[in-house]
């Protein structure tokens, strides 16, 4: 490889293209003019490793591993401040979720990221019967970091739990018997169909 082609390879930006093709709303990334209003407007701003406008620049700079392995886009709380203020109307919130979803699909998302783990627990829970099993969800969430911390968290939340029991918001027997949707078979085939449609749209079919 000559020096020239080596340099071309070094600076070839496949990652922007990859994002455009695979990430939901990813085609907007190239429209960013780096004004910084999104980063300045984010209520979680100081806690992000890379705020949105920095992530857009990193995508354009081809920093694939740093972006997809980042905790940053998992920080988004969907407050929509950035979308409202972006002078170029980039759907920044959606791009953040799109990037997180893409990283997760590729298995590159940080394994221990709490947002990702909660999302996974929530999905597995609701996808089983079509209705959230509150008891199962809370216990899974509290005990996701081990038994000791689980007991601690559950004890701290006991008051809320009792309140929910009293107002019949929590079924104490849900671990034994949880009432799902009326037609679970139809619900499962609906999910399957939705996944097919999504995969086809994102070019993941087959």
């Amino acid at each position, binding site marked *: 490889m000559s020096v020239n082609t080596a340099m071309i390879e070094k600076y070839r930006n496949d990652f922007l293209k990859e994002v455009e093709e695979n990430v939901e709303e990813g085609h907007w990334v190239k429209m960013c003019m*780096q*004004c910084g209003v999104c980063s*300045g407007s984010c209520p979680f701003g*100081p806690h992000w490793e890379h*705020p949105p406008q920095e992530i857009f620049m990193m995508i354009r700079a081809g920093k694939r591993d740093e972006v997809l392995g980042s905790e940053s886009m998992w920080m988004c709380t969907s407050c929509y401040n950035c979308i409202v203020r972006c*002078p170029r109307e980039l759907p920044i919130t959606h791009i953040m979720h799109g990037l997180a979803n893409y990283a997760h699909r590729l298995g590159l998302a940080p394994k221990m990221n709490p947002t990702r783990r909660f999302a996974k627990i929530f999905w597995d829970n609701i996808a089983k019967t079509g209705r959230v099993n509150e008891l199962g969800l809370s216990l899974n969430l509290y005990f996701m970091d081990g038994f000791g911390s689980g007991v601690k968290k559950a004890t701290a939340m006991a008051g809320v739990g009792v309140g929910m029991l009293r107002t019949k918001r929590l079924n104490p027997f849900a671990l034994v018997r949880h009432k799902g949707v009326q037609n679970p078979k139809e619900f499962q085939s609906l999910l399957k169909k939705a996944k097919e449609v999504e995969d086809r749209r994102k070019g993941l079919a087959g």
Partner: protein
Amino acid sequence: MTDAVATNETILVVGGGISGLTAALETAECGKNVILIEKNPSVGGRVSQLYKYFPKLCRPSCGQEINYRRLKANKRVRVLTMAEVVNIKGAAGDYTVGVSIRPRYVNENCTSCGACAEVVSAEIDDPFNYNMKKIKAAYLPHNMAYPQRYVLDPSIVGPEEGERAKAACKYDAIELDMQEQALELKAGAIIWATGWKPYDAAKIQPYGYDRFPNVVTSVEFERMMDPFGPTGGRMLRPSDGKEARNIAFIQCAGSRDRNHLKHCSRICCMATLKQSTYLQEQYGDDSEAQATIYYIDIRAIDRFEDFYKKVQADPKVRFVKSKVANITEDRDTHDVFLHGVNTEGYHRYDNTHDLCVLAVGMEPSVRAEQINGNVAGDASGFIEMHEANGAIFGAGCASNALDVNRAVQSATAAALRAIQVVNRVAGAEV
């Protein structure tokens, strides 16, 4: 007033700002008959509201004086003030334009002695100073007004104040029974030079122009520098009248933003760079005086680059590459806090300033599609060249966001196009 004689060889110029004045004078000095109509009581437009021009930092009044001399010397231009176009009928080479003239209540006998203003007690907001100041309801629009003639606000044209003003006038110049007039003017070509207005800063919600007294617009800041302006030529905070030393400038306030104006207003970068030099002028070497310019990118093109370099070298001026996210204020001191991220290094800031100046964008005073139903405009409402426009030619800021220099060039170009039309009309009649 009504003795304006117009034929289809007459050129009608709508708007008496720097573009309209230029177009009217250039066409008249080429031997064409021109009627210049202006909505306000005085010609001069927004240029007369400027303290200094960029990049030479000279006063606009001297160039205006030359233009007014040309205007006085030229018998081919008829100036109608307080006049507005109501409708346009006909086609290129043969237009009939309906014009409505608001009553001034002061006739041509006025010597602008000011005796009427002395006896009138009612006060009104001064539009020349963006309503930052009160003036008597019998007033001269501003010191450089042309024509130099007083105006009576309709609110005092009643039995008491009006009669008092009339009695005070030694020249029989006040006519309280003056009525609105409707004219029909013939014209071969129309030069549309209605200029621009500052974007409504209150619409930029995160910047709090409508909530925080110490957030002002660039046009208001410009008026503060005028010795005859609302603050007597000093940079005083609207909240407490104290001198503002630590001043923030926010660029692209409304411009280049799909939520507001899509276009780049072109003048704001240079206007802010110019206004940052006012600190040196006002405070000399006082090290506390500091301008901070928050920008996305500085668009100082061609020869303006030199001006930009000079300002960059000024220790009083600091540049922060960032579109400010939002502004909050201290409820007791009314200091303003600017929040955002400096994209050079991604540093989060939370900066305190005495005063914040929004470099507001430019939008056309009259949108192209409002003119005659078939005048072509771009997405922002600026007039575009189009066959369907017939002989209606956009000039100056009615056609684009332009600085004074380019507005004058645009007006001269429009003058030439209008002359071609009336020459054709004249040829056809021979």
